[in-house]
């Protein structure tokens, strides 16, 4: 059996563990002592209303921002103590709607994912080329490889950025609203891809707005409210009528999707006036 050039060779021993993470932005407490764990090789959703701190927490988990206090460990190692490049080989982060002014092809963009593996002056090697090709293929973007990134649709761009993250050969993949502004079919295909990546051993955590998408694809959810973890655990047991009411202030019924058996949340109309 030959190892895949992109996906992790062996299952990761430990998942993501954040403990007592606190973040202040300009003096305001955004994340207030968050503890959360994400099991290795699972696809988990980070949920919560606008302003709950999802994006801030994700950027700290990805170590692109610093926490004011707390520990974040992945695979048993403290992320903050890892060397930057080593960390970028372990953790990949897909920002919300990142874009560029440069006329880069899809392949150019995905090749950026190889940055943490290349020394400043080394050329792109055959291994890098193979991994880039494979990452593009995994994201189902092979026919687009030589297209210009800025001319792609939102869904296609999101898949390219995902391929860029995969080219980092990450064991932990963090995504901020990967389905934002995508049409339904693009949303479903991105999430299906993430769920499939998780089955190959990648630990995936995505901030999501849409509770139904989380319910349909994620094994576990972490729900934030006002910078704290309100609830966390298996999707089915966490996403309840009470939780939707308490966290989002909306009445809802939690039903079962007749096609998949997974939970579906039907929202009650808000009373006007």
């Amino acid at each position: 059996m030959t190892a895949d050039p992109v996906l992790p060779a062996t299952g990761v021993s430990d998942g993501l563990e954040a403990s007592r993470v606190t973040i202040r932005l300009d003096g305001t407490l955004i994340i207030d002592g968050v503890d959360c764990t994400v099991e290795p090789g699972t696809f988990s959703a980070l949920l919560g209303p606008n302003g709950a701190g999802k994006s801030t927490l994700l950027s700290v988990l990805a170590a692109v921002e610093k926490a004011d206090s707390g520990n974040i460990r992945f695979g048993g190692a403290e992320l903050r103590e890892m060397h930057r490049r080593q960390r970028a080989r372990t953790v990949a982060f897909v920002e919300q709607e990142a874009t560029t002014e440069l006329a880069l092809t899809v392949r150019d963009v995905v090749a950026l994912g190889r940055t943490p593996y290349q020394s400043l002056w080394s050329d792109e090697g055959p291994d890098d080329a193979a991994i880039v090709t494979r990452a593009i293929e995994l994201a189902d973007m092979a026919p687009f490889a030589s297209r210009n990134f800025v001319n792609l649709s939102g869904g296609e761009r999101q898949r390219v950025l995902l391929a860029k993250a995969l080219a980092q050969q990450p064991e932990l993949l963090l995504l901020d609203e990967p389905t934002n502004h995508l049409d339904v079919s693009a949303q479903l295909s991105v999430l299906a891809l993430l769920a499939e990546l998780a089955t190959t051993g990648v630990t995936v955590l995505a901030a999501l707005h849409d509770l139904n998408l989380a319910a349909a694809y994620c094994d576990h959810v972490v729900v934030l409210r006002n910078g704290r973890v309100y609830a966390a655990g298996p999707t089915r047991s966490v996403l309840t009528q009470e939780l939707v009411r308490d966290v989002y202030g909306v009445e809802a019924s939690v039903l079962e999707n007749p096609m998949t058996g997974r939970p579906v949340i039907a929202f009650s109309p808000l009373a006007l006036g």
Partner: protein
Amino acid sequence: MTTRRGATRSIRADKSSADDGGRTRRTIVAIVMVVLLFVSLTFAITVGPTTITPIDVWGSVAHHLGLGTSPLPELRDGIVWQLRLPRVLTAAAVGAGLAVSGAVMQAVTRNPLADPYLLGLSSGASLGAVAVLLLGASLLLPIAAFLGAMLALGLTLLLASSLGRITPSRTVLAGIAVSALASAITSLVIFWTVTGDSYREILGWLLGSLAGARWPEVAIAYSAILIAGVPIVLSGRVLDSFAFGDVSAAALGVNVQRTRWLLLGTTALLTGAMVSVSGSIGFVGLVLPHAVRLMVGPRHRALLPLTALVGAVFLVWADTLARTLFDPRELPVGIVTALIGAPVFALLLARRKASS
């Protein structure tokens, strides 16, 4: 879905990457530009009131490098070795330095309108030059100009940091403020002191000119290329990682703050050195990086060395035009680069609009 799942267990990546076409193209462009640079340097030396053949040029150069005797009589040999050769060599270095600095400024600030003078460097250098030419400060002109440029850079960074955390946009705004102040002081000094001939001298300097380039200028320009230019040209991969912004670069393992300031500082040194030997020649750093992007794409590993070559060739020709168009009078080369650069820039803008 099935193809993806099936493929997860085997390397199916074809190693002949789709990039090969681009690589061949970049290699061809690079070879053409290197040949063009040597041809341009040789040709530029032959042009002038005294006609000299290309063979004589190389014969004279070989003679001064200790190989054989010069084919030229002493006077004409002096024209090659003392006047024209140092001038074209300086033109090539300044063109390369400015073009590369422009490309880096555009990448680091993510601003396509950025040029090497963005942080107040040229206005500061002009003030330094005015201090020598008009106020009689007892410094060598290049040193005064360099000090002026570095003073302006320091002021810009000081102002930017006093506004809070230093960001690219704050730095650019601070640069505009410092530039305006330095230009105003320069104008004031000119207004009060300039008479007759010194006016042409200072105007030439303000518009950019290579008329005074001799071997000391060659030494300054190539030292800067060696110390600052070469490391910058080799840092293309890091610049590429900024394509999607700071967060994306940080997620790729780049130390964003340190890299940005290292690049800005090195670029400022390079630009400062170039301004000190030539005055502030406009449009080279703004326009050429865009033109080269159209030829070889936006990836900096290829873009930076090719931008350097194109910048060198361009300024050698621009300077040749500047000293021959209205012979025996010389135009400041900055007028030539602006006359060529402005329409080219307009053309690039039109193309950009058409393609988006």
